[in-house]
């Protein structure tokens, strides 16, 4: 054990002699995080869903949809452009809008007569989020129209369908409508449902993750992946410098040699994790009580990543090959494993796969530790899965190191 610590100290000293590499491993995810933070800070232009509206009915109700969609909070999300059917079709086919809504002829009559009516919505397949906003907004409008029709159907019919071509409804009809409103006043005013707006407090953050809650665990594991990959390459440096053969001819075995490297890796990763968590607690409202277990988890998982990468290096036939292979693995792992994009923003199928990658498994669990409900059972199963894989990788690496790798 004493030699393992000596070997670890030696590797840490060597790492510190090359601070640029260390800064790259840990600094790169920080830079990426800051860039992502800036991108999502809302200082740039707000994206609006561009809705093309073809109004074939030209009625009071159809115009209400057009004007209602462009007002209030909906107006901040929607830009509505009215046009004829031919132009609308051309524009949506050319991908120049998020969606095309066609209000059919007879729409108002059908609504008022309580007859089924269909609004046609064509969405732009090249866009994912903006057509979704439009769809949700329309569902809301349709629902509102349904309840309005249920509550005020007869009165609306009387108001909107004026006899003898009158532009405005008669006083009698307005009075009847007013009477009807009074009957539902107790329900509507004060409203049964109320909206309370408040500023989120740190305690609320646990259940309402913000940008950093989404990205911080992934970014931390990006740093751990870089560190694990970078440190794993050291077996090649030891081989080419002759120190590997020399160490293996001492009474210390390959296991002690690799264990020293693992301890060095764990130490450097622990520092990175600790720094991240201190930042997280002070700046991003990570609950302090969750920090110790998060620290242990992330460091442990980082050590496991190191074991996998060392095995990859030892199975490679050259340093260049090892570097290439591990780099080819690092980036897809970061993509799939929630480091570049949080699982919450991924398509469901990708997130499902990503959560089973070696780093994704750890990232998902870290999010639970930091921001979710702590489930000791799930944590234990996750730790066992990662631990078993890491031990197998470590033993295979020792075997390979003792065999062909050292003497080839």
């Amino acid at each position, binding site marked *: 054990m004493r030699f393992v610590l000596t070997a670890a100290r030696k590797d840490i000293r*060597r790492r510190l002699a090359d601070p640029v590499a260390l800064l790259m491993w840990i600094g790169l995810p920080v830079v990426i995080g800051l860039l992502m933070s800036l991108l999502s800070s809302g200082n740039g232009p707000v994206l609006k869903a561009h809705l093309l509206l073809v109004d074939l009915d030209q009625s009071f109700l159809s115009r209400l949809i057009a004007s209602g969609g462009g007002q209030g909070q909906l107006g901040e999300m929607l830009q509505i452009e009215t046009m004829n059917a031919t132009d609308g079709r051309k524009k949506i086919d050319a991908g120049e809008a998020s969606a095309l809504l066609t209000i059919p002829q007879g729409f108002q009559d059908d609504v008022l007569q309580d007859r089924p009516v269909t609004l046609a919505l064509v969405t732009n397949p090249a866009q994912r989020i903006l057509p979704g906003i439009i769809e949700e907004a329309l569902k809301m409008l349709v629902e509102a129209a349904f309840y309005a029709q249920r509550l005020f159907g007869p009165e609306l019919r009387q108001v909107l369908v004026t006899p003898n071509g009158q532009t405005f409804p008669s006083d009698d009809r307005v009075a009847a409508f007013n009477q009807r409103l009074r009957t539902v006043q107790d329900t509507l005013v004060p409203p049964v449902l109320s909206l309370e707006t408040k500023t989120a407090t740190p305690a609320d953050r646990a259940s309402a993750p913000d940008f950093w809650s989404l990205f911080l665990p992934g970014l931390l594991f990006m740093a751990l992946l870089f560190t694990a990959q970078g440190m794993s390459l050291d077996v090649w440096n030891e081989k080419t*410098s002759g*120190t590997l053969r020399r160490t293996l001819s*001492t*009474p210390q075995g390959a296991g002690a040699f690799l264990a020293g490297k693992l301890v060095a890796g764990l130490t450097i990763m622990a520092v990175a994790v600790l720094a991240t968590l201190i930042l997280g607690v002070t700046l991003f409202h990570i609950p302090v009580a969750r920090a110790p277990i998060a620290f242990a988890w992330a460091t442990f998982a980082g050590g496991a990543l190191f074991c996998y990468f060392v095995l990859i290096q030892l199975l490679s036939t050259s340093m260049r090959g090892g570097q290439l292979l591990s780099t080819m693995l690092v980036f897809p792992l970061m993509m799939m494993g929630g480091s570049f994009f949080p699982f919450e923003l991924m398509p469901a199928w990708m997130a499902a796969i990503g959560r089973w990658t070696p780093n994704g498994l750890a990232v998902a669990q870290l999010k639970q530790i930091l921001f979710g409900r702590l489930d000791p059972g799930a944590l234990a199963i996750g730790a066992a899965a990662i631990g078993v894989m890491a031990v197998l990788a470590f033993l295979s690496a020792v075997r390979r190191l003792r065999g062909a790798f050292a*003497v080839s």
Partner: protein
Amino acid sequence: MIDVTRLGKRYGDLTALDGVTFTAEPGTIFGLLGPNGAGKSTTIGCISGLLTPTSGHVTVLGHDVLTDHIAARQQLGIVPQELALYDDLSARENLAYWGAAYGMGGDALKRRVLHVLERLGLGDRAKEPVKRFSGGMKRRLNFGCGIVHSPKVLLLDEPTVGVDPQSRVRLLELVREEVATGTCVLYTTHYMEEAQDLCARLAIIDHGKLLAMGTLDELRRLIGEKDIVRLSGRFDAPAMRRALEQVGGIEVVSADERMLRLAVEAASRRLPQILSAVTNAGGDLLETSLSQPSLESLFIKLTGRELRE
């Protein structure tokens, strides 16, 4: 002491070692002399436990290097042919690391490291990163890392290759100092002079086989009093052999289209006779040289080629 018995090592069809047997005694230097690729480093690899022999066995102070490898390695110090140092660490840190690898620690290790640094002449550069050292300084430190734990058996694999003359002299002094403390040294080299100067006993190895073994005197007796004559030029090798054998008292060690090597007693007196036979047989002579009996001439006699070829 090192006891090597019928040691064999094969890599597929290639035989790297073939039945190598020798014993190296405490307080002496046993030289393993041979050209590059002869099997010297493979022998060291098998003794140090880095390579697993295909046949035979090796013991170090009675401990089998395969079945009792920890005890065997504990007694071994190794100075590899290539530098094996951590360039980013200082000389002191390197020595401390290799000492710890052999189980040393605490004050004993610190004292030993300081002592070795002084012996290596690196005391004033102890804290500097090795990457700032000259080649000779690195060689000395490489040697120091092999002796920091005071091994009873020291394996030196061509430790003076590429070393400047001053550092070489210092290194050879260090080797002698180790032997004076009773250390058994196995010294591989392809420098004939080093082998002659240092080694009490020698073995000549080529193509994985020991060709001859003994003290320097014993080996010299093998070649007798014959000098080695080298003739270079353009020759018809079979015709040359026939012509020279007819002269009598001339042993043709090797003959090819460019070089003839002959073992001849009192060669300086018989040189006109030799040259005449060669030219009469149609040889086109360009250069002639003659050397007194030595390890090199023995090597040529045994292998038919120069040590550095």
